[in-house]
Structure formats: C-alpha cells, structure tokens
C-alpha cells in the first residue's frame, strides 16, 4: 500500500505561467539551498567519513517526489510506493534498509532522512540527505563484512520509520538504533547533521514559496523538469543509436575466492526512448558484493554521463526519466533477492561507471574516456590501544583518474564527487598510526597520448595491534585503455612484518590481525590510458622522469628511450617505428589479456591465487 499523505489543505497547485527569468532564479535558489545542505553537514558531522571525506548526498524534490537538485536521483517515488503509513506535517522519515526503498540507498551503512515540507497544510516539497555511517554494528568494525552471506550480518537495518512524528522526536527509537553500533557518538552527530541539513533546505523552500507564491514554485519546478526532458530528448536522439551496442566489464572477485563476476549492459534507442538492458549480467553473489541497483538511480547515472560526455552545460534533474527504460534481471548481481548481503556494493557501483563510459563512447570514440573507476577502496583498522581506548579507522583511498579526451588523468585523485582524502597529520594525531609514505606509483597510469593517472602507494605503520579489513578491486582485471591507450596497473596490498617478512594480502579481506610495527602498502589502481602512446611528446616523458611519475623503463611503453634522463631521439624513433609495426591497427578498447590468460598468470603476476569461476545452482530469471 502506498503512503497516505495527509494534508489539511488539499487545494491542488494551479499551473501558472512562469517567465524564463523567474524560472532561472528559482533554479539558482534551489541550487544554493543544496550547497547550504552540504555546508551544514560538513560543519557539524563528526565521523571522518562524512566530515573529511564528504561521503553524503543531498536532494531537494518537488511535491511529487521528483528530484529538482541533487546527485543520485530521487528515491522518493519507490519509497512512497512501498511505505505503508501516513506522511504529515511534522513527520520526518529515517531509514537505512536498501530493500525497503528498492535500492535507492544501496547498503545499510547509508542512513537516510527524508523531510516532507509542508506549508499552510500543503505538501510543497521534500528535502532529504543520506550519509555513510562509520559503523552500524554487525560482525565487523565498520559493518561492511565482505564475507557476509546475508544482510543480517551487516548490522542494524532500519526500515522507514518516523524519527519525528507530528513534531514529536522519537528519542527511544534513536536510542535503540545507537545501541546497535560501535561508534554511537559519531552516528549520533552525523544523524543530527543530516537532519539539520534537511531542515535548512526546507526553510529555504518555504522562503521561496513565500517569495514567489506556492503555485509559481510548483509550476517552476514542473518547468525545470520539462526543460531537462527536452534537452535530454534532443541529446538522446543525436547520440544514442537504434542498433544495440553492448559493453561488459568485471568485478574481480567476491572476497571468498570466486570471480570474476561479469556485468553487462546493452543500450539502444527505440521509439524515442533509451533502453538499458543488463541481460547477461552474472547472478547474485553469495558474498556481499551485490549491488541492489535502483532503476531511477541508473537513469540518473546515465543522464549525468550523457551530459558530462557530450554537453556539460546542462543541469540535471529527474525530468527525463520517462525517456529511459532500465531492465535488470531479477536475482542478478544488480538485483539480488532479499536477504542477500549488500555491504560490499561499492565495487559494482564503481564498475557501472566504467561500463557507462564504454557504452556511450563506442559510437563516438573521440568522446570516450578510459577506465579507472575501480571502486572506492576501503581500509578498516580497529582495536583497543594500550590505554584501553577503542579506536576505529575507516578510510577511503583514491587511485588514478583515467586518461581523457581533455588530457592526462590526474594522479591519485577522486572519481567520486565531493570526496577528499583525510590529512595524514590528522590521522597520525587521532589514530595509532604513522603514514610513512604517501605518493603515487610511477608507471601505474596506463600509457597513452593522454596517460592514465597514477595510483597511490600509501604506507601505514600500525602502532597498536588490531584487525584490519581491506576492500578493493581492479587487482585482477585491469582498467582498460582506449583509442590506443594501454590498461592501467592493477591494485595490490603488501604487509611487511617488523622482521621484514613480506605477505601479499588479498585485495578483499576481513578481520586480518596486525601487530604493532607492521607496515601495510595500500596500493591502488592506475587509470587506463587514452590515445596512442607513441604520439606522446618525448620531452614530456623526460620531464615526468624527473618528477618521479614515470621511470626510464616505463617510458619505453611510449616508445621513448631516455638515457641519463635525456631523450635519445634516434633510439626513440627506431623504437617507435618498431612498436608501430608490431602492434598493427589500433583497436578502440585495449582490455589487456583475456580472462583465461589473466587466470593462468595470476599467481605469478599478483602473488595471489586466481579467483575461481563462480558456479550458480539456479539460473537468473529472465525479465
């Protein structure tokens, strides 16, 4: 049963004419309100994940629940459809269970608050924000056990409930929830911060309604959606072919020794609509790498990629949703059945962007970017220090940005919007750690006319015994290059014990014990290269050699011979000619070796056994 919205004033909004200027003003004002939400959040949140790294996402939607400003598209529609209850003035919804909102949030760590905004008894808008909690209980610190086999092992699950009910705060509920987590102070502060952000935005919306009139505001948001619909319709017609194109890529493993998992998407245009069909994607995993992908969110991702690749001027909202149809097979990695574990969904989420890029760019390789949206590598480190104080670190790492039509991919930067690293001096001050090295890995970016960004080698020295967990991907299937660019280097993790013993750790592991003095090299992936490396200016390689971004050996991948740091022009010409002849025609994509070859060489190349091909005892249901 869908939610019942209780309004004391049922007068429908009148459609009134909105002049262009007012429309633009309202759009700007909404955008500013969204910026205010972010500002409020980072100023009041406490967990490093939110306050330093920015792992939180705001949204403002119209009275029908369609997103007007925000990043990941609206989940309000699916929520309203499945929420069995009322929604009235003074209510605020709190939830974290992905299955209760059709995957609009994708793991239970994301706590979401949703505020219906009422004015004069009438629902005028929604404001909402969700943010990643450092811990929500469950079997491991950080609550993202890669080896979880069901969602019950992943901590507290909050179905949609009212944290505020008709203006009354439900303190008991919050107490109950915070009782389940290892870091109640952080969670409480972060929850307060989410609520404060939604309230700030709600205040702005009401002010806008007062300034322009409720009818004008409602008509304006309709028109903003309509404006976006028109722009996207044009873009789709000019850029999406009627003939289906497919693209596939892989999640390396599931943390339990199985992999890789295939994700596949086919795209075509049919009667003015884009169809995105994930048929061919592998079935769901028994571990936690499943990604419950919400169809609306997929539409938003697609829209954003279209815009960024083809015309970055357009602002996006929910207006174009009717132009896209998303088909995801039930029981697949992207639509797992309850109660499949979901906490490790970040890898599939990241891979989705590589797939989108590959899909959209096939028809127009000049717009194509290379791959490198590995995932968002996580490190957890927890324990009790010598003074008896519990500590828990959750860090998100960064790797190489892919080579782009615009230029080289930046080294060691974030592909996720708004994310930043945590200052190492901050970490050293508040956690029992030393960061001995924080630099990018030379040659790790894929060679290209525009090279991929280098991955990062971050060296942690643990000062207290404890447990660590690592979640990373792109260690087995490399990030691909395009238009002649080569794949980027793969991720790896190396533990050096105090006595010098070196242990290669899996890129997904859980509850691994470390001793004081152990040193961890957390090495992330390099971005794929873009364009023909043999066309890159040799002088640039000489410069990057002095910068420590490439090595003399690595420069040979560009056909450049550096002798004592200086370009040997004759040798370079000779090498380039030889390489050109040997390679033949340039293919649009360079995926590196095929899966079987990767498997065969896995142990030798990575020091880790090859993942085992997963077997499923039931088939994926056809849609």
């Amino acid at each position, binding site marked *: 049963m869908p939610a019942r919205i209780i309004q004391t004033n049922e007068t429908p909004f009148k459609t009134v004419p909105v002049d*262009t*200027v007012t429309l633009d003003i309202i759009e700007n004002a909404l955008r500013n309100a969204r910026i*205010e939400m972010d500002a409020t959040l980072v100023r009041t949140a406490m967990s490093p994940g939110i*306050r330093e790294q920015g792992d939180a996402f705001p949204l403002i939607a119209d009275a029908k629940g369609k997103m007007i400003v925000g990043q990941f598209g609206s989940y309000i529609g699916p929520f309203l459809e499945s929420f069995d209850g009322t929604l009235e003035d003074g209510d605020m919804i709190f939830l974290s269970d992905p299955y209760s909102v059709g995957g609009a949030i994708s793991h239970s760590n994301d706590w979401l608050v949703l505020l219906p905004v009422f004015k004069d008894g009438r629902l005028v808008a929604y404001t909402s924000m969700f943010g990643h909690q450092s811990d929500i209980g469950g079997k491991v610190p950080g609550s993202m056990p890669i080896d979880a086999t069901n969602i019950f092992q992943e901590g507290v699950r909050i179905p949609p409930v009212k944290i505020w009910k008709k203006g009354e705060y439900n303190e008991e509920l919050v107490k109950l929830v915070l009782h389940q987590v290892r870091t109640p102070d952080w969670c409480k502060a972060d929850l307060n911060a989410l609520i404060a952000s939604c309230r700030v935005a709600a205040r702005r919306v009401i002010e806008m309604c007062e300034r322009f009139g409720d009818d004008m505001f409602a008509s304006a948001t309709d028109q903003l959606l309509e404006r976006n619909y028109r722009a996207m319709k044009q873009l789709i017609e000019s850029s999406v072919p009627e003939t289906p194109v497919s693209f596939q890529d892989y999640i390396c493993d599931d943390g339990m020794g199985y992999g890789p998992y295939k994700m596949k998407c086919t795209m075509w245009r049919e009667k003015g609509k884009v169809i995105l069909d994930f048929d061919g994607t592998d079935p769901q995993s028994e571990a936690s790498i499943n990604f419950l992908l919400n169809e609306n969110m997929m539409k938003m991702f697609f829209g954003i990629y279209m815009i960024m690749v083809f015309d*970055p001027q357009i602002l996006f909202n929910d207006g174009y949703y009717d132009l896209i149809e998303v088909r995801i097979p039930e029981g697949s990695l992207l639509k797992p059945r309850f109660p499949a574990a979901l906490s490790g969904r970040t890898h599939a989420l990241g891979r989705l962007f590589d797939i989108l890029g590959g899909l959209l760019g096939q028809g127009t390789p000049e717009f194509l970017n290379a791959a490198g949206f590995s995932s968002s590598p996580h490190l957890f480190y927890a324990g009790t220090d010598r003074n008896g104080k519990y500590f828990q670190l959750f860090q998100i790492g960064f790797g190489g940005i892919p080579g782009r039509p615009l230029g080289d991919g*930046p080294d060691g930067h974030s592909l996720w919007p708004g994310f930043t690293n945590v200052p190492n001096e901050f970490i050293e001050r508040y956690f029992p750690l030393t960061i001995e*090295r*924080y630099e*990018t890995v030379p040659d790790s970016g894929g060679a290209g006319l525009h090279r991929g960004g280098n991955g990062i080698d971050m*060296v942690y020295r643990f000062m207290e015994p404890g447990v660590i967990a690592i979640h990373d991907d792109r260690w087995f299937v490399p990030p691909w290059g395009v238009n002649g660019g080569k794949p980027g280097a793969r991720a790896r993790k190396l533990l050096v014990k105090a006595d010098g013993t070196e242990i290669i750790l899996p890129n997904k592991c859980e509850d691994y014990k470390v001793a004081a003095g152990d040193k961890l090299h957390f090495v992330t992936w390099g971005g794929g290269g873009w364009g023909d490396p043999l066309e890159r200016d040799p002088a640039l390689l000489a410069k990057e050699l002095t910068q420590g971004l490439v090595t003399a050996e690595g420069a040979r991948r560009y056909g450049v011979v550096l002798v004592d740091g200086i370009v040997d022009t004759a040798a370079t010409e000779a090498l380039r000619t030889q390489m050109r002849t040997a390679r033949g025609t340039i293919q649009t994509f360079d995926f590196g070796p095929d899966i079987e070859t990767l498997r065969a060489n896995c142990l030798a190349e990575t020091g880790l056994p090859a993942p085992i091909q997963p077997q499923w005892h039931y088939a994926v249901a056809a849609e």
Partner: protein
Amino acid sequence: MVVHRGQPGSISLGDDMTYRLGVDVGGTFTDLLLFDQASGGFWRHKTPSTPHDSSVGVLNGVAAICAEAGIVPADVEFFLHGTTVATNAMLEGKGARVGLVTTDGYRQVMQIARSFVPGGLAGWIVWPKPQPLAALEDTVEIKGRMDAQGRETAPCDDADIRAALETLKSQGVEALTVALVNGYLNGKHELRVAELAAEIMPGVPVSLSHIVLPEMQEYERTLTTVANASVRPVVSKYVRNLRENLRASGMAGSLSLLRSDGGLMSSEKSEEHPVSLLMSGPAGGVTGALWVGKNAGIRNILTLDVGGTSTDVALIENLEPRRVRTTEVGHLSVRASSLDVKTVGAGGGSIAYVPELTGALRVGPQSAGAVPGPVAYGKGGELPTVTDANVVLGYLPENLLGGSFKLDREGAKKAVQTIADALGIDLMAAARGIIDIVNENMFGALRMISVQQGYDPRHFALMGFGGAGPLHVNAVARLMGSWPAISPVSPGVLCALGDATTRMRTETARSYSRRINETDEADVLAQLEDMARQTRAELTAEGIAEADITSLFELDVRYEGQAFEVPLSVDPATLRAEGLASVQARFDEEHARLFTFNMDSAHELVNLRAVALGPSLDLEAPKLQQGNGDPSAAKIRDHELWFDGAMRPAVIYDRARLLAGDVIPGPAIVVEMDSTTLIEGDCDGTIDAVGNLLINPR
C-alpha cells in the same frame, strides 16, 4: 582624471604632517583618498592603473591629489595602501619559481593535494587539473621525522639536506619553502634546513611552514607556505620600489599595507609575509564600509562591492566584520586570516547568453572585462553585458556627469535584442531579465555569508559601492529584506577610504587541541598572555606606543570530533572570573543558532588566538549642510526609466548638490563623478547628515 573635492579642507600649513592618504590599486583605476586629520575634510582622485608597474600610477595619483589639496607629499603622515599585486601574481602564475623541501615519502604532497575533483558525479571528465604551485620537479625530500606529538622519531641529516638543497639550487629556484610532516608541532628540522639554505643558496628567501602557519594539515600548511614563498619576490620588489619612489618624492611618513583581514601592517612586514595580502584589495571596501557605518550610526551592514567582472560581498555585525581562517584565490584555498569576503562572477561586464539546448537565460561568469568591455562603452565589445542592460533600461544615463565619454545606447539595445530574440520576448523584458539574474547571483552570494551563517539579513543594511554597486543596491536590498540600501559618500573610492581609515593589526594563533574538561583557565590565560606579549611587541616595534595598543583574544571551540570550530571572543578578566564553563555555554548557544542543535559530546578547545590592534582613528566625517528636504536644487534634468513593466518618468540629480535631509522620491537617478545610484519607483532616498544616501521602501 578629474579631481573632485568632496568637502572643503582646512588650509594646510605644509609642515604639519596631518594627512592620511589611502591608495587602492584596482585592475582599471587607482583610487586615492586624502584625509585631513585636523578637519576631517577629504579629497578623492581616480587615475588609470599602470599594470606593468603599479607604482607609476600610484605616484601619478599622489602628485595630482597633493596638488589639488595644496600640500606636498611631505605633509602625508600615513600612507595606507591596498594592493592586488600578490593576488594577481598568484592568479596569473607570475609568482617566483619555488623550491619545496618535504619529508621523505611526501614529495607528491602538492601533486595529490586533497584528491578532490570539483564538479558533481563524472565531473572528472571535464576538470582541467591545475599545476601545483611548487612544481614537482622542484620538490625534494629529506630524511627525519617528527611524530604527531612533536617528538623526533628520526633525526635529519646535514649531508642529506645539503644534497637536496644543491639540487634545487642547480635548478634555479628563486624562493624556498620548507614544509615537513608534523612540523607545526616542532620546527627543529625546518630550522636546520633554513640554516643550511642560508649558506648554500644565500639571497634566496626562505619560508618555513611552522612559522608561516603553525597548524595541522600538511597539504594546507605546505600550500600556504609555498604561496607565501611564491609571491614574496614580486611583492618585495613592488613594495621596495614604491617605498623608494615615495621617499624620493619627499614623503617621510609611515607606509603600511592593508592585510586580508582588514588590518594594516608595515611595508617591511608585508615583504616577509605577503600571504597575508591576498585579499588586500577587497578588504579595503569592507573597512571603508565600517567607517561609513560608524559615522552613519549603522552597525549591521552587508557590503556589495560591484566591479566590472565580479562582485565582493561581506558581513559586518555590530561594526565588526566577520573573519575567516582561509583566503580563497582562484582554485586555491590558502590558510591565512581574511575578512569573510565572497566573490561571485557577476559584474557590470558579465555577459548574458542563452544556451541552445536549454533555452535558459544565463549571465556570467564570463565577462567582457575592461577590454573589449560592454557594447555601450564603444571600445569594441559586441556581446550584451549587464551594463548594456542597465543602459537600455535607462538606469545608466548617457551623459555621465563630468564624464568625457558618451554611452552607445543604440549599440547596447542591439546587443540586448539578441537575447530578446533567443528568448522570444521583447527588448525591455530581456534587459530586465539580465538585471534580475545578475541581482539574483549577488543575492546568492549574500545569502552564503548571512543566512547560511545564521544571520537574518533583515537585521542588516546593504551598502553598495564600487563602480556599479549603487546601481544594484536598491534591487538587491529588496531581495534580501535588508534596509536601508546605502549608497555611501564616494562609493567609487570606498576601498581607498577604507585603506585610509583602518588601524594596524597583527595576530598569532596556536594549536591547543585539548578537551575543555581536561584543562583549566589558568593554563589558557598563561598562553594568551604570552601571545599578547608577542603581538604587542610586534606593534611597538612598528613605533606604536604601548598605551595605544588593544589586545583581543579568541578561542576556537568545537564538539570533539567535529571538523569545524566556532570562534568565540573572550577577555581575560571574564575568563578568570567565570572560567571555561562560560565559554562552553556560549559555544552551545552559538552552535544552536548556527545549526539548530546541541550535543552532549565533550567540548574541544582547538586554537587560541591573540590580536593586537593599533590606535583607531577617531575621525568624524564632516557634516553636510542641512537642507530643507527638497532636492530640486540638485536636479539635473527629467529622464525616463523602466520600472514595474513600463517606461516611467524619473529625475536625474547631481549628488554634489544634494543637502542633508533631502528626500528624493523614486524613480530617480543620482549621478556623481565615478558612480550612479538608482532609486527604484516605490522607494525614497534620504541624504543623511554626512552625505550618505539611504534608500527605504516608501
């Protein structure tokens, strides 16, 4: 350009040295304002800036304004100067080639930065990554390490440092920065590098991170120190050159520069610490607004400084401007105190356009700048700008008083018509639309510094200045609900006025990072007193009498675990009497005001800060002659302008002839040498006792 006498000055005796001269160097004009400290009379002057060497323009201006006032440069006791020399060097990448010495393992600290990519999801596709301010090839590592408590865990090594410095020397770096991990807690290794640098590369200026910014966060501290090193040679050269030329012209008085935080520092100090000058330009406007507010009896002010390409806004509460700990320059955020000035790409030269795909009307941030400029200026501009829309609507009349150039109204119309055609609306609606959008952009910036910080703009007046501020101030005040809208005396040279009327300032900060319940006021007071001694000594060294120095103190407090602090001002007597508990209570109050909630978490005292201020200028603005309320004697001519959907009759007045108490009914336009004020149809403008124009809804 024309020298305009604002008020009659007293007759100078020539050797009194009773004059203060404020000089603001902007992109297009150098503004000067000369104050007679005895009478309060002043003169203002505008002269073209000379970007190749700004001191030429300054000296031209000095000569002209002294001649007009009938004095010689030797009569000037204080030369007070706001400059964008440091800012421009940063923005245009014309700083020095900086060598950076970092800790082993951290060579790429500037390359990786904070890993942040601006823009939303997929923003990385279109982001051009800027080059680090210290090039990676000019960055070297040295051995040695401090831990997060400031204890040495590995020693540095002279041979290793020498080798690193030799490398930088051979590469020809022009300035040196040393920024080592955890150096903010212990500067021993940085000092050793400086000692060896003095020997190996004498003459190369050295900036040390633990001195420039003794604060946690390696990237920000390194960046700030590099920024300091980078602009140092440029600023130093400029300041020395200016000082020598002024001295040669006979000026013997003191020479000070305006800091980003609105205080003054000696020209010598500014050579060492130019990173404090990055917002020197906009800070002048804020300090000018402060002086105007003080004289007009208005204590809460939002400022709106509208230039050709951008608009700067700031908030003044109870005659105290808001300060922040960061200075934003281009894409860089440097840790140096500055007035909380937000800049938006919206000004007279902002270009209006209609993107094909969305059919929306956009204004800025692209600007026609000074060249080619708006179409109406007839200097080759072809794209419609905000100024052109103002011309079309009749807000900017053709014959500017005393101005030598004529506006090309037809050209402006033709340009704005292209927008009208693209939108399918008529000319006037398009022009008004451009103005509405640009006003909205200014409104957005003002909200960020007011509403977003928990201030209610309805408790503030809005002051518009800069060339175009008074044209927009009435409309923006309406959006904000901030009345009155103020067009101050001399709105075109308010920055120079600010330079002339502010006071010396210096400050120091220390990281404290302790829970309030784990320390006590005695320890805090002891540290504050030590910091007071240090800052006061800096001012006495500048020749300020000990008795004239005021010390102020601030504590940064947060809930333990938060990333942002709330600064609270304290005085030692109250702190001694009421203890840290009162600080805690005030923090809770402030936090609830800002963010609507409180927490029961521990309070952390993050930083201590001490400020020392020189004497304030007790100079009253001269009173204007009282009129009878009727402005008609100042009327220049009848006019027509667009208001409320139609062209309506209006009157143009000459500001110089308006008297105190005159009430001007809108719609009206008030013109003066360098600025034009628009009073909208349903508002009245009143001239206050000292000549400010206060606009209120009728």
